[in-house]
């Protein structure tokens, strides 16, 4: 009988990696958004394995429930222009650069994973309510309260900026000379 955690980790890994590949490789951007959603849900499952319950809930609510929905809104707003066919301009240099980076990154990853030798690092058991909302909240509001407030201001700036950028502006109406009597 396979250990439940290892099976759950395998399922989450499949979701994460296949979702990631679907995100970057899908021609249809709606399929890409669904791949992103799958990847996000897989990451949330991994957070549960890593004793980060609050972060898993925040991940689902914020990422899956707001960011992906925002992407879908914009994709559907753009309509058929959202998935345009591409021509071969600069294709060779892009593919070359991307493949070189992929090889180098996976090679670096392999080297780093071999550094610890053959013994894998096992995680210590979670203790003292690790990752629960009480403990993380206490740390957030004592040690990290200033970044918390600054992130609130950042979100306000982002909302105002997004509204300003997306609103656009109409050109001022032409005033005829005899209208200003």
């Amino acid at each position, binding site marked *: 009988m396979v250990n439940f955690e290892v099976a759950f980790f395998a399922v989450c890994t499949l979701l994460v990696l296949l979702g990631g590949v679907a995100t970057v490789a899908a021609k249809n951007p709606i399929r890409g958004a669904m791949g992103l959603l799958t990847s996000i849900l897989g990451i949330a499952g991994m957070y549960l394995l890593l004793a*980060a319950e609050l972060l898993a809930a925040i991940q689902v609510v914020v990422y899956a429930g707001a960011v992906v929905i925002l*992407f879908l809104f914009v994709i559907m707003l753009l309509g058929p222009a959202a998935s345009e066919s591409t021509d071969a301009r600069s294709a060779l240099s892009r593919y070359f650069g991307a493949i070189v980076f992929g090889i180098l*990154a996976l090679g670096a990853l392999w080297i780093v994973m071999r550094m610890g030798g053959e013994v894998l690092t096992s995680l210590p058991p979670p203790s003292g309510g690790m990752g629960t909302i009480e403990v993380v909240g206490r740390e957030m509001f004592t040690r990290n309260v200033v970044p918390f407030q600054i992130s609130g201001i950042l979100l306000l700036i982002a909302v105002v900026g997004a509204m300003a*950028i997306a609103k656009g502006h109409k050109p001022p109406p032409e005033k005829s000379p005899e209208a200003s009597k």
Partner: protein
Amino acid sequence: MNLTAVPLEYFLTVAGVLFSIGTVGFLLRRNLLVLLMSIEVMLNAVNLTLVAFNRMYPANHQGQVFAFFVIVVAAAEAAIGLAIVLAFFRVRRTVRSDDADLLRN
């Protein structure tokens, strides 16, 4: 259940491969929406690394708090990025990054 069956390197490998997938997608694709989505993929990979290391060194919760702030910034950046995509579409009627070439010679 004690949550100790999966070693740390597995999480780090998944995060590294996911980051590579996101970066290769960011370099390869020219659809602006796919670029933004691959940025989100990369940020998710970084968050996974942060939380995995926090689990390894559980003296405090700074890894999880940092990941929380990464999620906040990623959400704000996605909103602004999509607003820029919409503004760009309004002018150029396209979402290909190759068509953002006004400053090219």
